């Protein structure tokens, strides 16, 4: 499947549209606040439209994963070609993008969340030109990560996204914004360095034929084929110790992003200090890059190590679920509570993918999507109240239900979706993750499922503290949500409800790829084990 416009593929368009938007924004005079806002919105809406086109034309039967033929909307051009360098030889790097069932839900999610983040950013007043320019650049970085099939390109996008994030938190954030921004930046950079090392090790181990010449490559799909590994190279063979080391390096790089215990503490700080829209993007999209990276890169390139470390992965998932839930329960800051609930919910993704079977993998992928929509809603909800009351203390509120009925109605959907109420999307992905994980790790899954009680407890407790009871007098002049806020919350609520009843639109997208990924990892590892 190929869709082109002006001879440029749709994935390039959807990735670089925000950069175009950024250029336009930068050209606008900074007094034209409305123009800047609406331009940003227009470009992200355009991006959503492209996402819908992709959704419509995506072939559900193709699997992708390790075959270029299975990838869709592929574009591949030579990007960097340095003919000869003294000791590395020829460096040839491709601009190689394409999507399969793992990436397409993330592409949709990124487009959606970015658009909603822009709507939510309309209330920003401080140097908005810079703000929207950075926001759009961030958008490109995120989208790029999800479409890149070349490791180098992936890495570039991964780093591109870091910089705007740093400034968005560090400039437009709360009182401790600099601490949070630096913590986020350095923590992620640490992960990036590990990833970079693994990437370089892979580069020097893998060769492909390019015409008549044999060259090293960053092509991810080539890295998934054991035959491409040079004889005698560092990562050659199966189950060798360097492969485990490389896998762990990659894993830590991604785990920081998830964030998996014990690398999660940057998240609450970043969330608390970040402006609402950035929290939404952070929780809605950025966290998924970690689990996406594991699925896209770590699992299929190192299937032997992946299988070897399934239990530790599941165990980290378990800790995330339970530990995150307990920590959430003890929070007094609304945003911090949601941040920890993210830790808990992302644990379900880890557990589901560690199951390494169809239901678990699909549960995990679907949970990534659902967590994106649900947590985005939760952060928006916090943002709404923070904009009005300038406090996020859970104990400062009470009785908002009567004062802000529309707001409270939407809040109920988000809260109950977060605690896994059937009929809302979160339930299905959680249930599938657990059902899948139970097949592989019986007791660990039972222990993890205990989290559903804790989640219900802290969610309902929060709901009670903020929305039930009587309204403190100082909030008598709070107003219900306005049209703009409805515009960002209602679409998400609708998606959460529809997918909760009829999940197939998203499940169908990822079904083939989930199966292919599981089979590929299991078979490769299986062959590996036989070979030993």
């Amino acid at each position, binding site marked *: 499947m190929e869709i082109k416009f002006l001879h440029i593929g749709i994935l390039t368009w959807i990735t670089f549209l925000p950069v175009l938007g950024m250029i336009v924004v930068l050209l606008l005079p900074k007094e034209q606040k409305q123009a800047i806002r609406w331009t940003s919105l227009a470009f992200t809406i355009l991006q959503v439209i492209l996402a819908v086109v992709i959704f419509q034309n995506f072939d559900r039967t193709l699997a992708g994963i390790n075959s270029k033929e299975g990838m869709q909307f592929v574009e591949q051009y030579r990007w960097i070609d340095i003919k000869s360098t003294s000791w590395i030889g020829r460096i040839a790097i491709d601009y190689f993008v394409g999507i399969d069932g793992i990436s397409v839900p993330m592409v949709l999610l990124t487009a959606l969340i970015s658009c909603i983040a822009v709507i939510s950013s309309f209330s920003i007043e401080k140097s908005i030109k810079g703000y929207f320019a950075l926001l759009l650049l961030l958008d490109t970085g995120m989208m790029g990560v999800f479409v890149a099939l070349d490791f180098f390109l992936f890495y570039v996008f991964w780093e591109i996204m870091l910089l705007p994030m740093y400034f968005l938190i560090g400039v437009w954030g709360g009182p401790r914004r600099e601490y949070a921004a630096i913590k986020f930046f350095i923590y992620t950079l640490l992960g990036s360095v590990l990833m970079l090392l693994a990437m370089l090790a892979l580069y020097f181990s893998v060769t492909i034929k390019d015409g008549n010449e044999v060259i090293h490559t960053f092509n991810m799909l080539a890295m998934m084929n054991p035959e491409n590994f040079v004889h005698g190279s560092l990562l050659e063979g199966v189950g060798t110790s360097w492969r485990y080391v490389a896998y762990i390096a990659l894993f830590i790089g991604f785990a920081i992003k998830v964030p998996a215990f014990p690398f999660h503490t940057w998240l609450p700080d970043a969330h608390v200090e970040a402006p609402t829209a950035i929290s939404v993007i952070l929780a809605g999209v950025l966290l998924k890059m970690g689990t996406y990276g594991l699925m896209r890169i770590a699992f299929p390139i190192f299937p032997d190590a992946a299988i070897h470390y399934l239990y530790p992965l599941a165990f980290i998932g378990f800790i995330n679920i339970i530990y995150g839930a307990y920590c959430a329960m003890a929070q007094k800051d609304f945003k911090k509570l949601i941040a920890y609930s993210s830790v808990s919910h992302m644990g379900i993704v880890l557990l589901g993918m560690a199951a390494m079977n169809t239901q678990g993998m699909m549960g995990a992928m679907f949970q990534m999507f659902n967590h994106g929509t649900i947590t985005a809603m939760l952060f928006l909800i916090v943002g709404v109240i923070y904009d009005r009351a300038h406090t996020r203390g859970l104990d400062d509120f009470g009785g908002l239900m009567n004062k802000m009925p529309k707001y409270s109605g939407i809040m109920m959907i988000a809260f109950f979706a977060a605690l896994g109420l059937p009929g809302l999307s979160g339930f299905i992905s959680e249930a599938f993750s657990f059902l899948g994980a139970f097949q592989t790790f019986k007791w660990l899954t039972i222990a993890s499922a205990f989290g559903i009680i804790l989640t219900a407890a802290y969610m309902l407790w929060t709901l009670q503290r903020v929305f039930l009871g009587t309204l403190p007098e100082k909030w008598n002049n709070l107003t219900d949500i306005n049209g703009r806020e409805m515009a960002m919350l209602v679409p998400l609520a609708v998606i959460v409800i529809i997918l909760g009843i009829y999940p197939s639109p998203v499940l169908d997208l990822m079904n083939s790829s989930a*199966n292919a990924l599981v089979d590929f990892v299991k078979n490769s590892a299986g062959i590996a084990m036989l070979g030993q």
Partner: protein
Amino acid sequence: MHSLLTLSLAILLLPLFSFVLLIFFGKKFYEKSGHVGTAILGIDFLLTFYVAIQKLTDTTNEVFSYSFTWVDFHSTIPLKLDLGIMLDNVGAVMLMVVLLVSFLVHLFSLGYMKGDVRYSKYYAYLGIFTFSMLGIVLTNNFFLMYMFWELVGLSSYLLIGHWYEKKSAADAGKKAFITNRVGDFGFFIGIMILWFNYSSLSFDHIYSSIAHGILPFGSSGWLTAAGIFIFCGAVGKSAQFPLHVWLPDAMEGPTPVSALIHAATMVAAGVYLVVRTFPMLTADALMIIAYIGAVTAFISATIAIAQYDIKKILAYSTISQLGYMVMGLGVGSYSAGFMHLVTHAAFKAGLFLASGSIIHAMHHALHHVNDHHTDAQDIRFMGGLRKKMPITFWTMIVFTLAISGVPLTSGFLSKDAILAGTLAYNHFTGQTLIPLIGFFVAGLTAFYMFRMIFIVFFGEHHDAHRLEHVHESPRTMTIPLITFAAVSFFAFYSFNPFSAGDGWFFQKTAVPESVVPQAVRAASAEAFGEELHHQHYLAMGLSLTMAALGILTAMLFYYWKKFSADKVVAAVPRLFTFLNNKWYFDELYQKTAVNGTIGIAKLLAWFDAKIIDGIVNGAAWLTRLVAVISGKFDHIVVDGIVNFTAYFTGFFGLVFRRIQTGKVQTYIIFALVGAMVLFYVYR
């Protein structure tokens, strides 16, 4: 799809329609919301009536079922999640129960909830409750069951917390939801076990697989475990020991809600779940179920004796009766357990509505005399209401007779059948404790129910002036009462007032064949039925005796006042306090589960902030420290050497500058001296 099934689908969806209509357009309807909801439910009830009659008069007893693939995983091993609905006799009866009660509660609420702040929301929530409850009734698989199971939990949460401005109401809703989640956690584990082993969650598929000898993880022990785990869901929802604590608190909700959800239907869902899973329960699982039911029945009956809040008394009596049903199913009296669910639904819903009628009247009267302190639900402030509220009184008498198991009532039939079952169970397994508890609780029930009747309706009213203002409730409230009273007579269930066994009910809801392996199977239905027959008269005699004893004791204490209850209380103060405080379950759970959880949460949050994040910050600090030290090192040592070199050079420069005078003669002298020295050295 069979036409009756299509109709059932319509029955299922109509209340959802009511919910959607009222939640979005409630403001428009406002005062008419109640009428809209009630009208929709009325239509739904008529449809159900038709479907149930059609189904139950059909002689083939065929089970209609329809499934569709909800999610197909397309994996190498076929893996599909099928959902669907089914209609059998049990389901048809249950449909009837749910809709009758729901419709009458809708009707009753027109009067009771009039002028409420969230009138339209109230009716909307009733709609979504009815929808979810019907979903539980009609589903043919565990997955959908679990989904609707949680949805009724949601509607229960919303309705308990209807007056959420009151902290106690908000607390009660939260408690109900979380306690139920504990049960659902077990339920979900059961579902995971079944899904693992059968790759399907439909009742049919699982039962036929078990019948073919495919056991979970190949062992009958796991089959027992699966049954028990699923039963955990029932323990939560049907408020069985040890998760019974949420139901009394749930009385914070409006009284019609208590009647609908917390007496007649939702709490009976747990019993219904046991009915649905009955074929796969092993003898061991059934025994555990029987004991849980018996213990529940006993504990809550003892608590009910020592309560003064009219709704609390009814709440504990509900728990106790639910325990009866569960016990009945556990001992193998399948039809009797289910029948008790049905008969209890009618008379307990009636009791709650009647209590609602009383509370309504009391509120009204208290309002008139400007008394805002007296608790309108405390029976000690009632008394002598008989004359003022005749319809409420007489219907309540009928309900109380029924719950006490007096002949000619529906309650007698079902309770007697359960008790006969416990005797038969004793015969097969030697578990004597079960019938002992069963009969003892029968006596207790009669006692505490009549205690309530005598205190509320007889004697003198606390305040004569206030009594003036007590009036009978309006017709929307009395019609439901009369209807429930009518269906509390035996004739609706069996034409023989002394035996349920001959009636249509038992024939239509005959015990399904067990699918578990012979070795772990409970007594067969035939043998059990045979033994039941033997025990029938003994059971009847004993249960009548116990009921009579209970009523007589209540009369001695509260009607003839031959004995003083206060003196008894004074004689055993510790026991009374223990019972009055509900065996201290709440305190125990507060100290252990709740405080424990919050304690762990605080501990882990501290650990996270201080240790984990401390390490991160520590690493950052360490890095900065290294940076500072290396900075200092750089400054002092490295730079020092450089500077020292420079200084040194400078010093020598200074020294040598002295020599460099710029005068040629001096240089020549230096050169000469130097040359001479060299000559001397290299001579």
